[in-house]
């Protein structure tokens, strides 16, 4: 209850967003409303094209809503994902240096580089151009880089999807360590990692956002809407 008293970290007020493509474009978000309290990690679920990445980009400040507003009362990271954030022609090290510099970390650039290198564990590839990286290596670097800065909220857009087991373990551990200090807004189609890292859930459905205090309810509602029963779990249980 006391969570409700204190102002929410992120507040979306009637957010509308549409894209104007060459073939027209409909509304992606039609009046999204939610409040994310301090210290709560949120999993975003919904089918492909429901607007999960769009919402994340809006929260990350890479785009602005057509109507409504998003109020942020904390430091929010850039969306950590497969695509953006790295210049392909530059090496991993150069990209890390760039990001450290724009965050004003000129003084402790060496510490940041060490931290990223240690987390990413990509070895000599750190000095190779990013375009030569596999998607797994990219997301290792992206995750390591964002963790080198202390944000209150980290935005992750399927950043863990392509990682191997050790990387997933590592990412999980890193966030478990930060419970209480920082939280996570995560888009993922892997329910397992969502359940491991998030407590609450937002289900994006037909342009609306539905808030669930418990992530499991959000996932269940999502699965119900697409007529899908979580087969994997049942299969495991019968084994």
């Amino acid at each position, binding site marked *: 209850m006391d969570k409700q008293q204190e102002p929410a970290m992120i507040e979306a007020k009637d957010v509308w967003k549409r894209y104007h493509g060459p073939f027209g474009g409909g509304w992606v978000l039609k009046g999204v409303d939610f409040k994310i309290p301090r210290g709560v990690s949120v999993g975003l679920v919904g089918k492909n094209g429901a607007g999960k990445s769009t919402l994340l980009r809006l929260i990350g400040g890479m785009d602005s809503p057509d109507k409504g507003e998003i109020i942020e009362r904390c430091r929010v990271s850039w969306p950590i994902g497969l695509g953006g954030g790295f210049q392909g022609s530059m090496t991993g090290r150069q990209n890390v240096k760039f990001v450290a510099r724009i*965050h004003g970390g*000129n003084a402790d650039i060496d510490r940041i580089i060490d931290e990223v290198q240690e987390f990413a564990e990509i070895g000599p590839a750190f000095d190779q151009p990013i375009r030569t990286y596999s998607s797994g290596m990219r997301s290792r670097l992206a995750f390591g880089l964002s963790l080198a800065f202390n944000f209150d909220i980290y935005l992750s857009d399927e950043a863990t999807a392509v990682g191997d087991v050790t990387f997933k373990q590592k990412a999980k551990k890193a966030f478990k360590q930060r419970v209480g200090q920082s939280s996570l807004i995560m888009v993922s189609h892997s329910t397992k990692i969502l359940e491991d890292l998030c407590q609450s859930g937002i289900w994006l459905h037909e342009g609306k956002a539905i808030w669930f205090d418990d992530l499991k309810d959000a996932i269940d509602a999502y699965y119900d809407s697409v007529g899908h029963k979580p087969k994997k779990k049942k299969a495991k249980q019968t084994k």
Partner: protein
Amino acid sequence: MKDQNPANTVRSPYLVAWHVWSALFMREFVSRMTTDRFAPVWLFLQPILHIVILVAVRDFIGRGRLIPGAEFIPWLVIGITTYIMFRTLWIQGMNAIQSNKALFAYRQVHPADTVLVRCAMEAKLQAFVLMIMVFMFTGLGHEMIPDAPLEAVEVLLAMTLLGLGMGLMTSVMVTFFPESAKIVNLISLPLYFLSGVILPIQFMPHGIQEFLLYNPLLHAVELIRAEFFSTYHPVRGVSLWYVYQWAICTILFGLALHVKFKIRMVAR
């Protein structure tokens, strides 16, 4: 430990802009110098080859070598270098957004930053190229030392600002219509001739001169020559203020476009 973290201290907006600019500057410099193994050499070789070929062609045609009040080769060299300075700034500024697209994921990086930083870096490089040209042709025995160096810097500054303004404007344009880059490249060729870089405008009829004087590049090219060679008579009616007017207008208009379309450029 936590307080050492740069993300924990709140920076003023000016400091954030400064950090972005310095980071972009280093990034731009590295990528400009390492695009291929030839890049740093090409930076100097391109204008030199350009001039050598043009001098050879003019020698071969063998007419109009008499420029009143100035030696022909230094006259040509300073005109070409100034024009190339403008053109490089324009084209590089125009392509700045495209080549830094991935970096707009960080909310403190604005498209206008990339254009500004790239033009600033290019202006420095081109100033360096100009100095090398001056020393090289002086060494070869031409009269290349400017008679009025400070006034020459003033003209070069106007040219730089004009290049920045055009870069700011066209960078927005090519983001939304990539095809327009081709048109810009197409325009830059006739501009080259209309700016009196290789053809002396003095020899043209007065009626045409009047018309050509709408082009601010002609003003700048003629003025820089007048500052370099005190005996040289530039085309009647050139004024530095006219170049600055163009520069100020293009910069303001370009910045306005950047403010208006910022979100749409980043969202792409």
